[in-house]
């Protein structure tokens, strides 16, 4: 049974990330058979999230937000065969496309004359460890489970940076905080979510 515009908590139903699998399967099916009914389900789930992402921080107008939804969904259809469920969940894949399209749209709106598109910034070779997917799923489950334990001021900064697309400096100016405070909140949040890697 399809859930339209489910609430945020519907996205994750326990440690297996079952619902994420649903969309990965759906995307695999789109790639294999060009199934338009499957694509319609996929659209009804992701388009409202992409629109929400586009409108976060009122960075884009409603018209540009719709344009972004259209661009991202069309790209998802066209690139579906490049989706590898071993490497990422469908929603991580869609998020990455949405982020890249939004970055490109910002640069277009600022009339950048550049030979580079956001897709060009992806590393030449992605890590091909056999456990990449398992690790990613685990880290997503951990992040999801720990998100609720973050102090609101840290969660707020993460939302500003990731969803509203504000730099640390912009977030600091908006919240009237020293830049160092914003940076340390980001670092603390990353430690608490257990995604810091020894480098």
């Amino acid at each position, binding site marked *: 049974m399809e859930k339209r*515009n489910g609430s945020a908590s519907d996205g994750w139903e326990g440690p297996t990330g079952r619902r994420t699998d649903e969309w990965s399967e759906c995307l695999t099916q789109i790639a294999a058979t060009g199934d338009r009914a499957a694509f319609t389900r996929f659209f009804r789930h992701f388009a409202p999230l992409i629109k929400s992402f586009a409108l976060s921080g009122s960075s884009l107008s409603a018209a540009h937000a719709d344009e972004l939804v259209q661009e991202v969904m069309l790209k998802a259809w066209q690139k579906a065969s490049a989706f590898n469920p071993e490497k990422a969940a469908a929603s991580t894949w869609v998020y990455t496309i949405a982020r890249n399209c939004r970055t490109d749209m910002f640069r277009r709106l600022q009339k950048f004359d550049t030979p*580079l598109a956001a897709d060009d910034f992806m590393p030449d070779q992605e*890590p091909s460890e056999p456990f990449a997917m398992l690790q990613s799923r685990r880290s997503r489950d951990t992040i999801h489970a720990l998100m609720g334990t973050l102090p609101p001021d840290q969660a707020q900064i993460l939302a500003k940076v990731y969803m509203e697309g504000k*730099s640390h400096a912009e977030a600091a100016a908006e919240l009237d905080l020293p830049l160092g405070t914003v940076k340390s909140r980001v670092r603390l949040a990353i430690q608490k979510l257990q995604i810091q890697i020894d480098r």
Partner: protein
Amino acid sequence: MAKFHPSVDLLTEYVAGILPLAQSACISAHLNYCPQCQQQSARLQDLGAVLFDSLTPVPVGDALLNTVLARLDEEPPLSYRRAQDPAVGRLPALLQRLMKGDFSELSWNKITSSLGISYLKTGDPGYEFALYHIKAGGKIPEHTHRGSEMTLVLQGGFSDAAGSYHEGDFLFREASDTHAPTALQSEDCICLAVLDAPLRFTGWKYRWMNPFLQLRAG
């Protein structure tokens, strides 16, 4: 294996897609040398995906769905079907695209007897994106920065008072740090440097050049 890395908050800005284009290109190039930073970025991207999943959906009308459905038969852009330009040799593909050739085909501006600079066009109006070629054992005159400087070692290595840096190492300096990098004796050093304000030489011998060191952004 790279020993000097971007800080985790810098990587966060990179992953969130909000770093200026030129800086983003420099970090992306570092990731090509550094599996640990690639892994760290992947985890930071997972965080982005979790935040994306928990956004409050904003209703999208059927008109938009129908517009997209009507466009599904369009030819996808060619770039979707092939992989990125494959990297030849060890340089990141993104840099090779901007260089349009190898180091010897670039035009180098000779700044001192041991330092040449080649400016690459990224289209970012706020940042200069340049390759520095320092002859083996050569020195960049002591200088300070009016802004920030990102450096990535592409070939050979150099050292300054704080340490010594080799292929793939990444450095980020904020305004007003003074240093005088010297290339390793064994081979020429080539670095990528991303600046938002021109260098300023501090030694008496080169100070006269400061007015000529304009930022070549774009």
